[in-house]
């Protein structure tokens, strides 16, 4: 029972969705099932967020209760969760601070705390891309040399001075980089990886539908 029911459910839901893509939604029930079942998945995820809330609360509450090292930070996280979530769950008819419209606590915290945090995290990427290039682009092997030469060439091509330099070597060099490297090799490799990964994904899907891959039930 504990193993059979999940396997059968996975099989049926997988099969229905796989088949439904071949039928027109306006003509058959089965054709309409695809968008419908995907909404179901979203709904289940919606319920599960409650478990997420329990998880983050439990981890941080335990740390505070046991006065673990750094429990103050955990307290801060706990407070932040509730200050953000609770007012948004209350109806905005009670107070303009509730709900999620402009002027609510929820919206204010998002606009003035969350957003600058996200933007700054994205800004960190520039530092990391420089240090990764510096450390990783060493001519240790033929492959690594190819990697670093192409990266350098493309970086030169991207900025005005570099482009002028490349043009001085051969007038068509910048166009060649665009045509043969970016739209030639780069595109071809991406395509090869995409085809291969798609086959891998399809094979993984098939293993799940057929119940061969059952790690989610702890069965190898």
């Amino acid at each position, binding site marked *: 029972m504990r193993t059979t029911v999940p396997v059968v459910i996975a099989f049926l839901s997988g099969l229905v969705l796989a088949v439904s893509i071949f039928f027109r939604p306006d003509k058959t029930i089965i054709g309409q099932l695809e968008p419908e079942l995907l909404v179901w998945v979203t709904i289940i995820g919606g319920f599960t967020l409650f478990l997420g809330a329990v998880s983050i609360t439990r981890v941080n509450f335990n740390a505070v209760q046991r006065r673990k090292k750094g429990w103050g930070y955990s307290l801060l996280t706990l407070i932040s969760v509730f200050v953000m979530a609770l007012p948004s769950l209350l109806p905005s008819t009670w107070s303009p601070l509730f709900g999620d419209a402009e002027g609510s606590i929820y919206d204010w915290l998002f606009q003035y705390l969350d957003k600058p945090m996200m933007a700054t995290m994205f800004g960190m990427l*520039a530092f990391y891309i*420089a240090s990764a290039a510096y*450390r990783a682009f060493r001519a240790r092997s033929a492959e690594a040399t190819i990697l670093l030469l192409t990266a350098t060439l493309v970086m030169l091509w991207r900025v005005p001075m570099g482009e002028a330099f490349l043009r001085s070597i051969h007038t068509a060099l910048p166009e060649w980089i665009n045509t043969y490297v970016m739209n030639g090799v780069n595109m071809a490799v991406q395509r090869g990886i995409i085809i291969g990964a798609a086959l891998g994904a399809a094979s993984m899907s098939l293993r799940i539908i057929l119940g061969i891959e059952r790690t989610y039930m702890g069965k190898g």
Partner: protein
Amino acid sequence: MNFWNKIDTLDRRWVYLLVAISVILPFILPVKLPVYITPETQQLYDAVESLPDSSIVMLTFDYYPSTIAETEPMSRVALHHLFRKNIRIVTVTTVPLGGPSMAEQVTREMAEQYGKVYGVDFVNLGYKANYVAVLKGMGSSIEAIYPTDNLSTPLSELPLMNEVKNYDDIDFIYVVADNGIVDYWISIVNALYGTPVGCGVTAVMAPKFYAFVSAGQMTGLLGGMKGAAEYELLLGQPARATTGMDAQSLMHLLIIGLVLMGNIGYFAGRRQKGKKA
């Protein structure tokens, strides 16, 4: 440990410091690295330049707040150029979050500089959902899609909008975008209604659209901050994009320099080890 050994095992924080310097420096000391005009930018500039006085241009703000470092300078150069030539502007956006307010803010700021009047010289229509329907619908009647402007003023009360009924009354469409909407401006608006479309797009998107320019479907193209900097040079008004491009050039050259140094250090280190062995 000689110099090159140290380079080989440099603490990454030195790299971070160099990055910070090369990005901040252009803001304090204008470096003014040379900028070269690409034909696509020139084409867009010429297209706007050749529009007669008091033409009407539709300018779009199809970008999200996350890409404003690249896209807002393009909106600014467009506004500079259009206002300077006494061209009247209708702005629209297909981006719900921030789109209308960014359009409002940037346009009004620039209009103030040029002494332009809202409703007469420019109008901000704002956002409407379902962009395919919006783009198609404006072909027959803009008023049917946008009964009011962004601030809920009926279009009939705006003198400029009495002259603009649909794409036939628009001489040029200047799209600034950071997403796939560009395809629709070309495949729906340019293809079906024949209004010329010129675009400013993010650097990542640009290569895809060069083909549109050579096919004549797109009248000129700005690729990211670099395109905006070229346009600023053409206008003779260096601004944010020029500063930004200086930072970009410095950063790219810095990374290339670091890679070079790292490799010299690596080989010097290896040679030394070889000697000892």
